[in-house]
């Protein structure tokens, strides 16, 4: 329900600057994902928005209201923590009801809201259990349920899936996406270091690097028009190939980027590049070829469907020219 504006927000711990000036406008009802490598300041930025940490300088507004000095419970936020952070000695019901009890809500109202949230997350049969009697996935649902009960303006998630195993992670990701669609007015901010999670969940992604915003945009924008070498390398899986030296000079740039899926295997002698196949990975739907073309690292090529290329054989490769990314000496794109 809230529009969140950050204006030149900075955060330092003593002499260490962790967030070095962030301007960001998060729209009402948007699903915003903060993504970046470990230590880039994602959690810190989220905690600044939550109010668990005070900002050192700058301005933060929720719906045009200055919240710099507002405590978390007055900001109308709810947070889902990485370790779930359920109260170990309270039953699921009491875990979910705790916030409303502290806010002195009416018993009947609390009960209605807890049961509604529990039903929505399909944990209504678990209300009488203690957290230690639940599986990891169930605990995660309870943590989300606890946040839901508070009916927040802003939903904050800090790497909520990183403690789950792979299968559960995909399922819970889907749940969170569904949750977002069913609560169109609620702004959600989600922190992850996993770019796949970011790409699949986000309305917009903010890429962080060393306490600064590198780029903000929709998943498609980041994928198609990365604003820096860093973003180009961070978004997409497998990673974009980067070529330097003569390969880049031929296109008039310092670094040439091309995604694995944008390189075609062509008939002998027809391609711009050629080399020996060092290794191949067959995922069934896709093939990944690792080709030695004389660059710093083997070139990764992604080919859909079945491909019959023997290891050690020579292949000719043609990049799709409109998909080439050229970067200058400052790692900025040349367009």
């Amino acid at each position, binding site marked *: 329900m809230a529009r969140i504006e950050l204006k030149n927000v900075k955060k330092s711990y003593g002499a260490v600057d962790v967030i070095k000036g962030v301007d960001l406008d998060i729209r009402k009802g948007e699903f915003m994902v903060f993504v970046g490598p470990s230590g880039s300041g994602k959690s810190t930025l989220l905690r600044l928005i*939550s109010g*668990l940490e005070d900002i050192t300088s700058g301005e933060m507004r929720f719906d045009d209201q200055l919240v710099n000095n507002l405590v*978390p*419970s007055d900001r109308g*936020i709810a947070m889902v923590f990485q370790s779930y952070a*359920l109260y170990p000695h309270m039953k699921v019901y009491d875990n979910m009801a705790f*916030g409303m009890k*502290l806010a002195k809500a009416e018993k009947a109202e609390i009960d209605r809201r807890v049961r509604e949230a529990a039903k929505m997350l399909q944990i209504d049969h678990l209300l009488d259990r203690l*957290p230690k009697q639940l599986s990891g996935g169930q605990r995660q649902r309870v943590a989300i349920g606890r946040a839901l009960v508070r009916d927040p303006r802003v939903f904050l998630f800090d790497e909520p899936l990183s403690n789950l195993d792979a299968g559960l992670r995909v399922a819970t990701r889907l749940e969170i996406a569904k949750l977002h669609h069913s609560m169109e007015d609620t702004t959600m901010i989600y922190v992850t270091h996993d770019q796949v999670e970011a790409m699949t969940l986000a309305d917009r992604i903010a890429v962080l690097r060393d306490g600064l915003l590198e780029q903000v945009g929709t998943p498609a924008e980041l994928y198609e028009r990365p604003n820096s070498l860093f973003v180009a390398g961070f978004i997409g899986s497998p990673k974009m190939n980067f070529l330097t030296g003569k390969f880049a000079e031929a296109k008039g740039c310092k670094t040439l980027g091309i995604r694995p899926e944008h390189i075609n295997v062509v008939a002998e002698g027809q391609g711009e590049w050629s080399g020996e196949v060092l290794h191949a990975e067959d995922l069934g739907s896709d093939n990944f070829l690792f080709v030695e073309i004389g660059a710093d690292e083997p070139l990764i090529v992604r080919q859909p469907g079945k491909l019959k290329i023997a290891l050690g054989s020579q292949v000719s490769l043609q990049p799709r020219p409109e998909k080439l990314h050229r970067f200058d000496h400052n790692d900025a794109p040349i367009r």
Partner: protein
Amino acid sequence: MQQHKLLKNIAFYALVIVIVVFAVFPFYYAIVTSFSTGSQLFQVNYWPKAFNWANYEAVLGGRNFPRSIMNSLFIAGCTVGFSLFLAVTASYALARVRFRGRGLLLMTILAVSMFPQIAVLAGLFELVRFLGIFNTPWAMILSYTIFTLPFTVWVLTTFMRDLPVEIEEAAIVDGASPWVIITQVFLPLLWPALVTTGLLAFIGAWNEFLFALTFTSSESQRTVPVAIAMLSGASAQEIPWGPIMAASVIVTVPLIVLVLIFQRKIVAGLTAGGVKG
């Protein structure tokens, strides 16, 4: 091979028995003595000859001994209550609130607990006199609390530090004040530590002698250890071993019962970090 193993087993249990005998024998001998009277006292007996309750009747029938037990109970109880309350609030600050000099403060607290009692006796006496609580239970409660707090604070701080920060933050987001966090979120998780430190504080206060002797003057204010020391026999030359041992047994039994009741909690408490979200 078999024999070797058997030998090892025997050696092991022999050692266990030696240790147990060493640890338990003095107390056992006290019990045996407490059931003997007259000249029996001066024979070395390893088994009680007869169960003679005369010593117990003498002790409990005395004018002041039951009164001393009540004094001790009150003083030890209050000491536990005060020191736990102060220690929980202090250790929350020490474990969770970031402030300058926290490490130094923690070391100071530990250092304070290393002073021998006798070193602070004079100063404490002045304090007691100044507060006008000489010869009242409050003199002991004050001094025991002072002596128990460092250890209690130290242990609880260690425990509190081990509690996941995210649980506290979840409570903050839920709108909990520090007081609510301490009482409704942390205390239920700290039970084992509270029981352990509380029990140790209780035992310390229950057995303390020096302060209790110094800060009381009238018989009715004495605590149990002092009362036992002051038990006198028929003549000045006779030490009444029988009643002394009976009294010692009487005051030790409550401690043993407490320890047995809370045994599991104590083990959990001593292996710090046992509380995990």
